[in-house]
């Protein structure tokens, strides 16, 4: 029996290579996502250890529940005198007060533009030059002194800075000053995880952040024979309230956890795409095995008639799939290493994004890859294997294709699967499920079942639809078109199975497109009303805070009539950290259209406004009091003065307080955006408007992270960033389409093989090679269009379902991007054209007589 399997694999090698390719791609994607995540984790774990190698313990403010690790709001600080007190302790060999800020200080290039990496953040840290403290090391030049900075190599290269150069630095205070580049630093073992670092000595960074006399934490080195734990124990009693001492081990763990969250996220996203790819390849494997079994009916019947048992036949097909699964797993394992390497290289091409380190192939990954590779192949081959076992001995004589399963089975089975899928999807979208992970599982399984159900049902109408799609082809191409149309519709089951991969790919792509276009259109509408301002002054892209000094500077301009700003803020409500905004509530309503639902939005120093929905959820109404915790740890009881129903202008947050109140509790002044109306209300296209815009731009030049935008420009920026995200997703889903194309090549090649004799006959009666290629090309186009149309229809339906499920205050209506969808359909047809090249070539080059004699 095994010999037969081997023979069969060898004989079908060509067809199996393509099948293998689809499994290998899927398995590689899975293995790649694990390898990449593991490699990143190992590197960042190392970075965490390196960064803290010289820190035996750290004294810092007790982290508040409400503060986020990478918060844009200034980190809490305390008086620097503590450093000297700590240094006096006998257990302490070294105490260094440190300041660290996130996204508040930038270097500027020759054009005055901020030098920053495309994704990762920019940190500014104090650095005394002590080797190893904070993980920094001077690799060239010297540590920074007064009015000097040291930078990482990537930043220096990007900015075109050389040691000794004078560099403009935009400071957190809102001023730009000139600093000398004293040296190039490295982080840990090299590689900064893509982030940029700006290092200054402590007094300089305190001045640059406007936090003279205070520090964010103290790094401690233990005296000889003092363990970090003993150091912590020694230091703790002398700490003022609100501060804590933490040993090295805990610091490392925390740091690794912080990185780990980001890496896990990347890993999950990649894994998600990998699973989609794998899912698509299941259909391709299934289809190949089904066709192979079908083509071997006669041989199987013969085996049965000479005494092979049904289970032997079943085993034969299954062993074949196991072997393929094994080969695919091994290849996929290495393919995964390749994919991880490629992704790393791609990220790195954006500038040192990922530190160097070996790719991590963990036993867990190997186990998963084999489980997935084998599992997927064997499961896909199950149905064909059972069908093969049902081949009757007589089939050897009769020939003929496999018994098609009954229509009733298809209709009932397909409908059932579809119904369960719809139910799961509905559940996932209903908001009934608590955990995000479970929602994704419900949506994922729901979508998968829907695809399977539709595939089963689509065989019922594939013939008719393919024939309808083929009608214009026939009108256009005559006899060759006629043959293409017939071929595409003669085996509906095969047509539907072949088209499935493309259907799934296009359904996902279209779904994403519908979602993206709905977001853009809805947000456009909302943003159009969200601002009463003529101009919005703020950072575009990432929400980077900037100094409040700009607010005063702009307010002083004659061109500016009303001005209001809002500031980033984190509040603790019911013990949970929430995003909030602080604004100038006296002028705010002119600038930001918050949609006052009730009460008043003039908040004063004791008031708070709440999004009406949040208020309803929490059972709050105007006049109630609400106790909130500020990031300084203070609990303040505030009166709810108003409810608003439009949060678009303030990034969708649920709580608003006055800026004055916030500044009593929060250091620094991280402004998120400023809105102004112009004196004399000039029309947007008037010269006065342009002049005013210019004046404001000039004033804002001190804060390079800030742009001045009109409402329309703001909306354009938003559309652009969503479209960019969509393009990225499209790129990843594009892999699905490629696999779908491989599937079509595969089926078409098998069909050509199956029709060898017919092709020989066609050639014998005068079909030219190019006519034959045309026939096969159009057959592929018809099948592809069938898949594309089905996919687009499902994509629109899925997108519609998701958008509808999203609460109305985010997305209130569905917007369908018809033009994009038309492009996808054309692209689907082109996939067919491309997929037909190889099979068409094969068919056209068949020897006529051999083909006619083919069994």
């Amino acid at each position, binding site marked *: 029996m095994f010999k037969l399997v081997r023979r069969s694999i060898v004989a079908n090698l060509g067809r199996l290579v393509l099948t293998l390719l689809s499994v290998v791609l899927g398995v590689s994607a899975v293995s790649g996502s694990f390898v990449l995540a593991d490699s990143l984790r190992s590197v960042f774990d190392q970075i965490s250890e390196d960064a803290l190698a010289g820190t035996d313990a750290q004294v810092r403010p007790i982290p508040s529940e409400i503060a986020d690790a990478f918060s844009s709001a200034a980190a809490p600080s305390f008086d620097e005198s503590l450093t000297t007190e700590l240094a006096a302790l006998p257990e302490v060999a070294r105490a260094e007060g440190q300041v660290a800020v996130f996204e508040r200080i930038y270097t500027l290039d020759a054009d005055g533009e901020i030098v920053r990496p495309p994704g990762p953040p920019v940190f500014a840290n104090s650095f005394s030059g002590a080797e190893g403290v904070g993980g920094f090391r001077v690799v060239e030049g010297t540590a920074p002194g007064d009015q000097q900075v040291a930078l990482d190599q990537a930043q220096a290269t990007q900015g075109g800075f050389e040691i000794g150069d004078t560099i403009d630095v935009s400071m957190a205070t809102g001023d730009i000053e000139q600093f000398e580049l004293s040296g190039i630093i490295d982080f840990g073992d090299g590689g900064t995880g893509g982030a940029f670092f700006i290092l200054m000595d402590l007094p300089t960074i305190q001045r640059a952040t406007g936090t003279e006399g205070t520090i964010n934490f103290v790094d401690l080195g233990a005296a000889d024979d003092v363990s970090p734990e003993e150091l912590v124990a020694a230091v703790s009693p002398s700490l003022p309230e609100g501060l804590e001492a933490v040993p090295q081990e805990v610091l490392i763990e925390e740091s690794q956890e912080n990185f780990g969250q980001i890496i896990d996220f990347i890993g999950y996203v990649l894994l998600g795409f990998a699973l989609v790819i794998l899912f698509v390849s299941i259909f391709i494997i299934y289809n190949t095995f089904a066709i192979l079994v079908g083509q071997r009916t006669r041989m199987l019947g013969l085996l049965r008639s000479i005494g092979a048992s049904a289970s032997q036949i079943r085993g034969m097909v299954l062993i074949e799939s196991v072997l393929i699964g094994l080969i695919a797993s091994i290849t996929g394992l290495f393919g995964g290493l390749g994919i991880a390497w490629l992704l790393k290289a791609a990220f790195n091409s954006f500038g040192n994004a990922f530190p160097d380190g070996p790719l991590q192939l963990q036993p867990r990954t190997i186990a998963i890859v084999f489980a997935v590779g084998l599992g997927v192949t064997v499961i896909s081959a199950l149905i064909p294997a059972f069908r093969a076992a049902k081949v009757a001995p007589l089939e050897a004589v009769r020939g003929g294709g496999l018994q098609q399963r009954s229509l009733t089975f298809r209709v009932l089975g397909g409908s059932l699967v579809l119904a369960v899928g719809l139910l799961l999807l509905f559940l996932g979208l209903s908001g009934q499920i608590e955990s995000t992970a479970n929602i994704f599982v419900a949506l994922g399984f729901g979508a998968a079942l829907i695809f399977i159900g539709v595939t089963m049902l689509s065989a019922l109408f594939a013939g008719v639809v393919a024939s309808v799609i083929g009608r214009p082809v026939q009108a256009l191409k*005559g*006899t*060759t078109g*006629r*043959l293409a149309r*017939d*071929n595409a519709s*003669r085996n509906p089951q095969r047509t539907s199975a072949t088209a499935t991969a493309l259907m799934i790919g296009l359904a996902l792509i279209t779904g994403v497109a519908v979602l993206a276009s709905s977001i853009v259109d809805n947000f456009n509408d909302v943003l159009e009303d969200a601002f009463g301002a003529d101009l919005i002054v703020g950072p575009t892209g990432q929400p980077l805070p900037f100094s409040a000094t700009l607010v005063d500077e702009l307010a002083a301009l004659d061109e500016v009539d009303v001005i209001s700003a809002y500031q980033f803020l984190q509040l603790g409500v019911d013990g949970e950290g929430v995003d909030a905004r602080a604004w100038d509530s006296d002028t705010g309503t002119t600038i930001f259209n918050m949609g006052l639902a009730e009460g008043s939005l003039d908040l004063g120093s004791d008031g708070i406004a709440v999004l009406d929905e949040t208020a309803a959820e929490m059972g709050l109404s105007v006049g109630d009091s609400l106790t909130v915790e500020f990031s300084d740890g203070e609990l303040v009881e505030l009166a709810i003065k108003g409810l608003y129903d439009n949060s678009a202008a303030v990034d969708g947050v649920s709580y608003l307080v006055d800026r004055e109140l916030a500044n009593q509790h929060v250091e620094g002044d991280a402004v998120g955006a400023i809105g102004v109306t112009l004196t004399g209300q000039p029309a947007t296209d008037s010269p006065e408007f342009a002049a005013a815009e210019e004046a404001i731009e000039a004033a804002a030049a001190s804060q390079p992270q800030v742009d001045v935008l009109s409402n329309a420009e703001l909306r354009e920026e938003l559309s652009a960033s969503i479209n960019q995200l969509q393009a990225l997703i499209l790129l990843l889903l594009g892999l699905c389409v490629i696999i779908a194309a491989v599937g079509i090549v595969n089926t078409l090649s098998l069909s050509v093989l199956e029709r060898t*004799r*017919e092709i020989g*006959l*066609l*050639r*014998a*009666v*005068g*079909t*030219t*090679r190019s*006519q034959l290629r045309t026939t096969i090309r159009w057959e592929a186009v018809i099948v592809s269009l069938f898949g594309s149309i089905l996919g687009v229809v499902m994509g629109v339906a899925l997108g519609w379902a998701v958008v509808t499920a999203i609460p109305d205050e985010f997305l209130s209506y569905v917007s369908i991007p018809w033009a994009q969808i038309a492009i996808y359909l054309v692209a689907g047809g082109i996939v067919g054209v491309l997929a037909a090249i190889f099979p068409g070539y094969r068919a056209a080059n068949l020897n*006529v*007589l051999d083909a*006619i004699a083919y069994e």
Partner: protein
Amino acid sequence: MFASESGTGLASSGQYAARAEAAVKIYGSGDTAVHALRGVDVGFERGKFTAIMGPSGSGKSTLMHCMAGLDRLSGGETYIGDTAVSSLNDKQLTILRREGVGFIFQAYNLVPTLTARENITLPMDLGKGTADDAWVDEVIEAVGLADRATHRPNELSGGQQQRVAVARALASRPQIVFGDEPTGNLDSKTSAEILEFMGQAVEQLNQTIVMVTHDPRSASYADRVLFLADGKIVHELSNPTADLVYDTIRSLGDDD
């Protein structure tokens, strides 16, 4: 059987519809080379029905294939009308098969997705020109398929399928029709009907037909019988009867 003789418009520039001159076909090379044709000289006169006989492996199919432009000779030359087949490239050969030659295989002659009528007009549909509908109707009528014209091959009996194949070979009014055991798979009654019909096509339409057969009775429908052995023409009979053919085969067989 044919209502008119509208189908006789064959370009008749020469005496022969097809010829072979010193045709040699060798499969493989070296020790394993098979000499399928060892220098065959033959001409098929227009308007004549020729049968080719010979033991299996004697090169009958090879001769048909090479003459019909389905395969290439190793040496010598074949002509369809005045066209030297070896000088044609693949495209020209294809056009020749479409317009100049009709071919009937023993089985699997039809495209399963096309109806009987569509199969018959397929060679013409593949070309630029349009089929002469009246003539096609006449052919369909003549082969007795008028009520089966819209059926697909799997709805037709083996005999009916072969009739469609014959009709297709005739419908484009080629210079010559080759058949490689066209009735080999059929019972004697059906086979007689088809041979009858082929004979009529030769007589009434001045069609030229060459057919390979194993059956002396089938051969007796022809005007002439050629005997092939070991890649050479070894004997020839004119106006054969079944008995004559039978005896000839016996006597040729005794020579071995």
